[in-house]
């Protein structure tokens, strides 16, 4: 191979690597620009608020997904866990909004812990375990709350649609979750462990890392974060609807994580990229809807984005 072609390859690798790390910000900028020019009413405080509120649950779910993917796993059950938590909010509302929300979060964590136990201890592939949880979780939610149930609770309504300092509560909560996950990843032992487990599980084991405990915790956290998103959605809709809450959100979350620069093979996690990825997913949906394309188009667009993102990440993971 000539020096020139080696250089060309190095350049291509570098470009690919740059694209993997920062492409998501370019994507967000591009879609914002498109909307500023072509979408009437896009540049308004009210629209920004709507977009932020709708992006919030995706961001929260994607954060948990990023942690799971960083360990080399995947969690397909996040949407079902959202539905479960929504069901428990309506079931326990009689005990007051706070209790019902706490129960919902606990249920999410337990569902995640079940995933984590089977993955970490029994060693079953995450994709199978969480696929089963995806089916069983939504099934259970439908058994508990067979159809859409309206929720009339002033506190929950306030949480779902109110604001403080001009920023909706749900956005505050999402921001808090981002800060929490950033702290976990950047500052804690747990954050170091999860990328090490994803990067080389055998090396992590030999280095005395508690691999199983780390995996269990990661899936539990992912379940709890999905439950947070479930509560957000329930509060915003003022209804618990196990049929539709969180439906197909796993696709958006996985896409957000991968577009944000976290490789599907694990060993690396990018929190800011994930947040940007989630915002990109929301803007993609909003744009297509605003331009009167049917929702099925947005799903196809999402799948196209995820394939493109995995393609970009491909070569680096292999070398």
């Amino acid at each position, binding site marked *: 191979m000539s020096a020139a072609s080696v250089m060309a390859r190095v350049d291509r690798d570098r470009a690919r690597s740059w694209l993997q790390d920062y492409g998501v910000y370019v994507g967000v900028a591009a879609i914002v620009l498109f909307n500023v020019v072509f979408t009437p009413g896009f540049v308004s405080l009210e629209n920004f608020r709507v977009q932020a509120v709708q992006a919030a649950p995706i961001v929260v779910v994607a954060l948990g997904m990023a942690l799971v993917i960083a360990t080399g796993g995947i969690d397909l059950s996040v949407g079902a866990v959202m539905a479960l938590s929504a069901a428990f909010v309506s079931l326990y509302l009689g005990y007051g909004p706070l209790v019902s929300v706490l129960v919902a979060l606990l249920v999410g964590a337990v569902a995640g812990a079940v995933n984590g136990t089977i993955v970490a201890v029994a060693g079953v592939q995450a994709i199978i375990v969480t696929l089963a949880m995806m089916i069983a979780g939504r099934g259970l939610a439908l058994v508990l709350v067979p159809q859409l149930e309206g929720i009339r609770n002033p506190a929950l309504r306030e949480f779902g649609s109110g604001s403080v300092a001009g920023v909706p509560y749900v956005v505050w909560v999402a921001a808090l979750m981002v800060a929490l996950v950033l702290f976990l990843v950047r*500052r*804690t*032992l*747990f954050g*170091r*462990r999860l*990328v*090490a487990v*994803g*990067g*080389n599980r*055998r*090396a*992590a*084991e*030999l*280095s*005395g*890392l*508690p691999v199983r405990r780390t995996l269990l915790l990661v899936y539990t956290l992912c379940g709890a974060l999905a439950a947070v998103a479930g509560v957000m959605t329930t509060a915003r809709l003022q209804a618990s609807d196990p049929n539709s809450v969180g439906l197909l959100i796993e696709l958006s979350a996985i896409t957000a994580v991968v577009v944000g620069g976290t*490789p599907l093979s694990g*060993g*690396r996690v990018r929190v800011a990229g994930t947040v940007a990825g989630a915002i990109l997913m929301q803007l993609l949906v909003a744009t297509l809807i605003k331009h009167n394309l049917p929702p099925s188009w947005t799903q196809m667009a999402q799948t196209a984005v995820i394939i493109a993102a995995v393609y970009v990440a491909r070569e680096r993971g292999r070398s």
Partner: protein
Amino acid sequence: MPTDRGTPVLRARGLVKRFPGVRALAGVDLDLHPGRVHALVGENGAGKSTLIKVLTGVHGRDGGELELDGRPAGFATPAEAQRAGLATIYQEVDLLPLLSVARNLFLGREPRWFGLIDFPRMHREAAEALGEYGVHVDVRRPLGDLSMGARQMVALARAVSARARVVIMDEPTSSLEPREVHTLFEVIGRLRGRGIAVVYVSHRLDELYEVCDDVTVLRDGHAVHSGPLAGLERLRLIALMLGRDMSEVAREGATTFAGAHDVAGGAPALTAEALTARHRLRGVSLDIRPGEVVGLGGLLGSGRTETARAVAGDLALEEGRVAVAGLPVRGRGTAAAIRAGISLLPEDRKHEGIVPGLSVRENIALAAMPRLSRFGLVSERRVDRVVSTFMERLRIKATGPSQKVEELSGGNQQKVLLARWLALNPAVLLLDEPTRGIDVGAKAEVQRLVDELAEDGLGVLLISSDLEELVEGADRVVVLKDGAVVGELSGASVTEDALVDAIARGEASPVVRDRSDGGAGAAPEEEVER
């Protein structure tokens, strides 16, 4: 050199095979004669597998000639080689476990009846064919139900029934029970009787002497010896495999080890007693005193790596105790061993060592992270300090602590891993092939470091396939065979010749390990420490 026994069935002259960066075969000659079993031996990486693959058309050759029955030949694909009468049975049986025994046997050449498989005939013929190999099973059962040995026989029957002229067996006994090995040898005897040339690859020398007529020894891509096996001393065979001239006195200065260390008295840094794990370790005991470098000798598969893994809590034991400075390791698993002060530098740098996506810094700090943290929060300042200390001490060449570890050279990666373990400030360091696959410069540095560490009072266990490294680096060498300690050399008796001898004779005269008194019970090849 091959004696005159008529025309060889298969003759190879000057076979060359290059892979990027290495010459796996550097001009190998091989003659296979009808009705003779030819042993192919050599350490890992000597070129055995490559030679087989070139012969059978898996790899193309970059030079040399191949003759079948005196006519130039050469196979572009394995199928072509098979049609010409070369049958190969690989270590891993490559059959389909869910299909029936008979289907496996006749796969691709099933007896037909109007285009459909003639099952009655296939079953009848399969049962007959397998009967010849001592396998009497219901051939309609899925192959997966059979024992490994029986499966091996099916693979053999499948290969041989295709009118083979040459049968190549790559480590055929590695997963067989003794009784199955016996049956295999009978079958080999029958093949020999039918005038088939057999190539037999194995690390088990006993087997070679039992079943083979001729031998070719490969080393670093060269055929260093070829001839009848009978009359070739076992000791000489091992010397040939390892590349040590028996008469040659151990050269000095080829490694950077300084020589003997001042071994402190008192409690051993490490005591391992009766380590036992099914099929792997049979009661291995050893101890290492502070400041001592103990080598583990033995051929591939003798239990060297397993011993290190067992000590480091990475191998589940049925029995056995490990103590550091007289205190038993509490709990199981690697974390417990690390807490007790045991560090293991694993053999496989890529798969067990480095975490590729992470930086040099994170890789160094990986195991020590809990000690550099408080309440689950990592102290970046302390991590930085430890990382810079070790990067300097080990002279790790990187653009900086934040460089990705995968971008480093093999030698520097190895140093990063050493730093990871030294950052734990261990009492015992287990090094499994610490210099394998790294360049000469890094190798010298690692060897010097081992010396320094021992001087600082660490107990070091050194595993190496490089005899020179073992002899010059270790104060004492414990020799393993089949998962048991069979000998020990210490002091002035640690020489390459003595080591080769101990490895070779290990099985013949199990040595009672006894270092403290005047040497009673020691076998002749073992000199006792003064």
